[in-house]
Every structure is written in structure tokens, then in C-alpha cells.
């Protein structure tokens, strides 16, 4: 087990390093002028390139960059917010995104689990149909459409909740974005849990348990639920990633200063900010790899049946 954990972490770190290098190289060999401006002269641009060390050897640049990144310094933006140092922006943005994303994931997982379990226990009855309607809706409609709907109804038609994210009313402000983001998670988990439960309830060992005289809540909690929940952990990783993507538009529309909004600002503004793209690209990849790593490890912990081969962790 220890060896597996160590190996898995090592692979993750190496993968991240390779990706960082690739991103760095791609962003640095970009064509065109990274400083779009109406009034800047060619000399000014050349001077700025020199100042930012864009003329050095790529490995030297990467080494210098990584040294700074280790200190939490991602350099300055090329055009966004007029070149404010990225670290001044990043901290608060990360915090906001994590808080709202965290609530969304917890809410989605919890409600999704409850829905899935209830549906499975009432197979083909009302709750089951309700659950499948919810999961279809959640899968078919993008989070930002839900957000627009919620914003329109709960912050405009009735002014129960803030119309925009307001850091002074943090809690109320998180309701609309986190609920709209949680729906996709919720529907996926509900569907997955229900199917897992149904499969297990039909399986031979449950049948055996039933025939031994075990039924009711004891059977469900001890044999069905436990085994149904373990695989749910595996769907969480891709869900978190989808959430990150969904957060982009949600943050933009609801005016949340998070990393999603930063990303949208960096790529859809008048000029693309190379350094923000790079910094956020590294962050997102790190997050993604980190989440996959955690899920793998937790899965390994939870399910002793999983025999971890030397190639373990491949998914």
C-alpha cells in the first residue's frame, strides 16, 4: 500500500511537471504581439520583451519561472488588469472559487445520494420517476442556464437573494451559484447511486442475505449501501472537473471574483493574457491531477477488494 501511494504521488508530480513545461513552452513560443495596445511603440514592446526575459533560452526561462512559482509568484499579467502581479489576484480568487465550488460539490453529492437511494428503494414508483426526471434535467441543461433561471426568479422577480455576488453578504450570495452548479453533480450522482444500488439489490449475495432472513434497513445499510457507495467515489473526480468548467460562466455571470472569471477575462478580453493563461493553466492542471490522485487513494483505502497491481492507478 505504501509503495502504491508513493508511486501514485510520484507519477502525479511528474505528470504535472511535464504539463507545466509543455504549457510554458507553448505560451512562450506564441506568435504575435503579447501586448496589444493602441499607443505602444515598437521600441517599447521590444523593451518590455527584454524586461520580461522573453529573449532567453526556453529552458533558462522555464527554470526561472519554476523558481518563482515555487515561491508562489506567477509573474505579471501581459495585458489583463494592466499587468498587476498575478499573485495579488490569485489568493482571493482561489478562496472564492473553492468556497463556492466546495458548497456545490457537497450539496450535489449529499442530495444526489439521498435521491439515488430513495429512488432505488422505491423502484418504479413515484420517487424513482422523480429522480430520473431530475437527473435528466441536470444532465441536459447547462449550469449557466439554471443560474440565469434562479437569478431571474429569486433575485429579480422576488428580491430574496442578492442579484450579484456580494462579498459582504457572502452566505446569501453563495446560494444561487452553488445551487446551480450543484445540479449536474446531483443528477449524475443520483443516477449512478440508483443504478449501483439496484444492481446490488439484485445481486446474488443480497439475495442470499435476504433468504437468510435479513431484510429492511439492516440489509440496506450493511450490505447494499456500503457497496454501492464505494464506486460513487470514482465519479466524483470527473464531476469536480466539470464543476470547474461550469464555474467559469457561473462566476462570470454572477460577478464572482474567482479563478473561473479570471480565466474568462484572460481569454475572452481584447487581448489574451499569456501569463494568466499559463498560471491558471498550471493551477487547473494541478487541481485536476490532485483530485484524481485523492480519489484514487481514497478509493484504494475504502475498498480492500481492489488488488492494486504494479500498474495500479491506470484508469
Amino acid at each position, binding site marked *: 500500500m505504501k509503495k502504491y501511494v508513493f508511486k501514485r504521488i510520484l507519477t502525479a508530480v511528474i505528470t504535472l511537471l511535464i504539463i507545466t513545461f509543455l504549457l510554458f513552452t507553448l505560451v512562450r513560443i506564441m506568435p504575435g*504581439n503579447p501586448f496589444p495596445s*493602441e499607443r505602444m511603440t515598437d521600441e517599447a514592446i521590444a523593451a518590455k520583451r527584454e524586461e520580461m526575459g522573453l529573449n532567453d533560452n526556453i529552458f533558462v526561462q522555464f527554470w526561472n519561472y519554476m523558481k518563482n512559482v515555487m515561491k508562489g509568484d506567477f509573474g505579471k499579467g501581459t495585458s489583463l488588469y*494592466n499587468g*498587476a502581479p498575478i499573485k495579488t489576484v490569485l489568493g482571493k480568487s482561489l478562496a472564492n472559487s473553492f468556497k463556492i465550488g466546495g458548497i456545490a460539490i457537497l450539496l450535489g453529492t449529499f442530495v444526489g445520494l439521498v435521491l439515488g437511494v430513495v429512488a432505488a428503494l422505491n423502484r418504479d414508483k413515484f420517487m424513482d420517476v422523480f429522480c430520473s426526471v431530475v437527473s435528466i434535467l441536470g444532465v441536459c441543461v447547462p449550469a449557466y442556464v439554471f443560474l440565469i433561471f434562479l437569478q431571474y426568479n429569486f433575485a*429579480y422577480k422576488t428580491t430574496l437573494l442578492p*442579484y450579484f*455576488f456580494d462579498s459582504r453578504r457572502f452566505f446569501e450570495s453563495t446560494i444561487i451559484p452553488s445551487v446551480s452548479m450543484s445540479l449536474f453533480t446531483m443528477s449524475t450522482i443520483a443516477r449512478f447511486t440508483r443504478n449501483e444500488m439496484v444492481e446490488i439489490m439484485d445481486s446474488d449475495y443480497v439475495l442470499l442475505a435476504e433468504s437468510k432472513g435479513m431484510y429492511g434497513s439492516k440489509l440496506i445499510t450493511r450490505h447494499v449501501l456500503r457497496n454501492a457507495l464505494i464506486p460513487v467515489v470514482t465519479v466524483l473526480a470527473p464531476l469536480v472537473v466539470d464543476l470547474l468548467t461550469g464555474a467559469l460562466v457561473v462566476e462570470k*455571470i454572477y460577478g464572482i471574483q474567482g479563478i473561473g*472569471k479570471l480565466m474568462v477575462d484572460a481569454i475572452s478580453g481584447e487581448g489574451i493574457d499569456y501569463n494568466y493563461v499559463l498560471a491558471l493553466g498550471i493551477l487547473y492542471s494541478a487541481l485536476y491531477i490532485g483530485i484524481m490522485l485523492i480519489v484514487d487513494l481514497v478509493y484504494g483505502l475504502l475498498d480492500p477488494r481492489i488488488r492494486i497491481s504494479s500498474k495500479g492507478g491506470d484508469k
Partner: protein
Amino acid sequence: MKKILCLVLAVVMLSCLVACGSENGGEKTIGVMLSTNVMSLDCNLATDGDSFEVIADCIDGLTQMDSEGAAIPALAESWDISEDGMTWTFHIRDAKWSNGDPVTANDFVFAWKTAVQTNEEYGYMFDSSVGCVKNADAILYDGADADTLGVSAPDDKTLVVELEAPVSFFDSLMYFPTFYPLNEKFYTGLEAGTYGTSGDTFLSCGAFILDDYTPGAANFSLVKNPDYWDAANIKLDGINYQVVGSSDNALTAFKGNSLDLVTVSGAQVAAVKDDKDLSSKLKVTGAGYMWYLSFSQTEKNAQGGMLANANLRLAITNAIDRESLVENYVMDGSLATYTAVPPQFAASATSGDDFSGDQTKFADVCSYNVEKAQEYFEAAKKELGKDSFEFTMIYGNNEGDEVTKVAQAIKEQVEANLPGVVLNLQAMSKAERLDKMQNDNYDVALTRWGPDYADPMTYLGMWITDNANNYGFWSNADYDQLIKDCTTGKFVTDYDARWAALYEAETLVMNDAVIAPLYTKSNANLIVDGLTGVDFHPVALNRVYKNADLTK
């Protein structure tokens, strides 16, 4: 294992739910929409109107704008101008930075010297085309030492500025953020680049203090500065800024009372006008910048320099129905424009008349007149020996809702009114459009220019030979001479003669149809009942809140 998991979950859950405290500011706090992110609060890095607005809320210049846009004393209590108009002496009043330091003349000297070294976009405000500050040209373009800039502080309360030529509107330049002071000790004490990136790294000496901010913040707030020199006359308790990208979102936020002052786009204006309740709150104000068509006159573009032919350009400019553009496509109260210098921003200091108040002054060369357009077109065809022309018009598809519509309408109008001309459309981002124009790689471009200061020169300076913003590569020796006379030559001391010469220069531009002016942009603002005294200006600072009050 389970317990640990539970614990972790609980901790995560709790940390997610911790809400920040602190209620909204005082009673007279207003919610204001910004349409884009504040790009920078460093007055030497900021380049856009929204940033300038917030900077000006927090920092005063030597002068500030009154409700009419004229310069009135601010940090400078008074000033003297030497007889030759070449030396301005400003007397600084007793004012304090928000960290308690007094505002001194040295803060200006430091700020200006920093500006000529680092301000890439607006450094030119100091040079001989605008501010004419002594030695600015040498520092900006020939690498002279910034210490030679013609500004000095004989004592803490006196600022002496030496000019290379008299600049009649120098006092009204002083309210532009490029000329604002910086507290040297504070600025240099910060890690490079972090000035103005949070409430702690920014100093205020104006009406409001930055409360809670990070770059790119979608919402942030300012609170009243109790130590402001004119605090007694500031009635607002604070401003909550909210960045709203979609103007429809702005409208709903306004209707839902989340915001008190918003700008809506043309599409919403019609709906607002239909709504009895809202229409009384609508206020259309000039945004300053003018949209126009730029024609490339060089050989390599437009089928071998076809657009170098003045008659062809005149034909196109007369074939455009500007009234239809503003009424059907822009729709926010923007003004159809028939002059190279747009109306509303530059008024004569002696007569008070708007430089371009009379939009019919070039009616014989620029109006919607299909017959005349076709006459010009016939002449052009004869001169060029060609019957059909095909050009490509580039425009930005991220420059506001209406630009795409306007481009399409122009195509239709020109093609319908000038049979034989084909105008293809090519959409791209603003950055790409600028890139193409700067590299002279286009036929026709739909572009815009906003005034930087309240003088026609902010436009007319563009069309001198070799100016970086002379995208058409038009060149006229008489014109160059006229502009030179107005900036550093014989007209600098005679205000009215200069004004007349500027008009003459504009005539040259219009007679040659160097550009085809289209419309001057307006902002359609919605202002909540009870909010009064917000000053709107088409130039420099778009909104000023120093006279604003909120009564409910």
C-alpha cells in the same frame, strides 16, 4: 477511518459556510455599474475610462472638473501663469493622504517624472503635441534623463511647471489622471507592481477611500474620506461598484434595486422608453468617442490604392445614411456625426461654442445624399478608369453589440447606393483589428477614437504625416503646417486665431474625406430617483460623484 473522514468533511463544510461580516456602508451609499473590469488603479498604468473614474474618485488632481467640465481648483488652491504663458505656478492646498502624510508639491514632481518614464499609453500627454512640458519630448523619445523634466517644487506648497509653448488649456489637462500625484515614500516602499492592487497598497487624497479591492474584482467599494479637504461638501457615504458585462443584466439589477446607476445598451433603450416608470429615469449623456471609417490610401491595399482617390472616398461617405445607423442599430441616443471632430466635448474658451456644434458645416462634402454620392462616384470611375470596386471592411466583433449591426448596415447602404462597389465584411477581435490597421494591412476599417482632453487637437493631431494613429497614411503639407502652428507655432498665444486655424484644418480633412465620420457614441444611463448631482462628461472622467447626493 470513518471518523477521520467525517471530521474532514465537517471541517470543509464549516470553512465553506463561514460568512464574512460587515454590513453595507452608510445610508447614502450608491450602487454603480461598471461595464468592464477596472484595469488598474495606478494612474500611470490605467488606460480606460472606468479605471480613470475610480482613480478620480480617490485621488484629486491639481484641478478637477466642475459639472460643466471646466477646470476648477482642487489640490491646487490657485495658480499663476507667467505673462508669456510658459510658466505655471500652482499653490498646493493643505490636504492629506489617507495614511496621514500631507500632499506636497513633491508628490506631483515624483508622479510626473514617473509618468514620463513609465506611462506607455499616456506619456504623450506631456509632449509637444499636448502638454508641452519642458523637455518632455527629449525624455520620452530621445532618452534624456527624467530629472530634466520642466517641473519643480521650490517648497512643499509650490509647484512650478515650465512649458515649451503656451498651452491655453493646461489647467484642464490637470484633471486627467496622468497628471495626478503619487506619494513617493509610499509608492517606492511597496513591492514593484503591487501599488493599487488592494485597499492596503493604495493611498487616497480625494473624496473617497478604497475599501475592499483586488485587481479584476467584480465588486468593490469606496467609502467617504473623512479627511478630504472638501469633505464637508461630499454628501455620499460611499460607492459600491459592480462590474456587469451584460447590459440586460444591468437593467434587471436596476429594476430590482440592486444598482442605482447603470448604463444600458441600445437594445434596452427602446424597452426603457416604453416603460413609463423607467423612462423618467433615463438620462442620455455623451460618451465622447466617435466611430468612423478609416480608408487605407496606400498602394498595397484596396486593389492597388483605389481608395487614394478622394472622389471615391467622398462617394462612400455621402452614400451612408447615418441617421438610420443611429436610429435603427445603435439606438442609445448616439449622434449622427458629419464632422472630423465630434461634437459635445470641446467648447471654445472665449465664446463657449461647441467646436462641432454645427453638424451641417461640411454638408456639401459629408451628408446623406445619394445623388451627390453617385456624382462623386462617376468622377472617381473616370479618374481611375474602372467601373467596379471590391473592398474589405474590417470591424471588431467584441466592441459592443451595435458594431456588427452597423458594419452590416453600412455594407448594405454603400452597395445599394453605389452600384459597382462591393464591400466585404471581415469580423475579428479588436486587438486583431488594431494590429491590421497599425501594419497597414486593410482596405476600410470601422474604428473609433475617444478624446483624451477637451481640445479639438485630440482628434486633429491624428492626421499629420507620420502620426502613428494616421491609419490612412494621408499626407498634406498645408495641414501639417497648420497643426504645427497651433501646437507650437504662431497661433499658440492667440486663442481665437488658433480656433479658426483648427477649423481650417478640419475642413482639409473633410474635403478630402480622409475619414468618414459616422456617429458619436452616447451612454444611456438609468439613474434611481433621489440620486442627483452625478456629473457626466464625454472627456477624461466620464462620471464624477463629488456633487452627488442621495435622498430617499
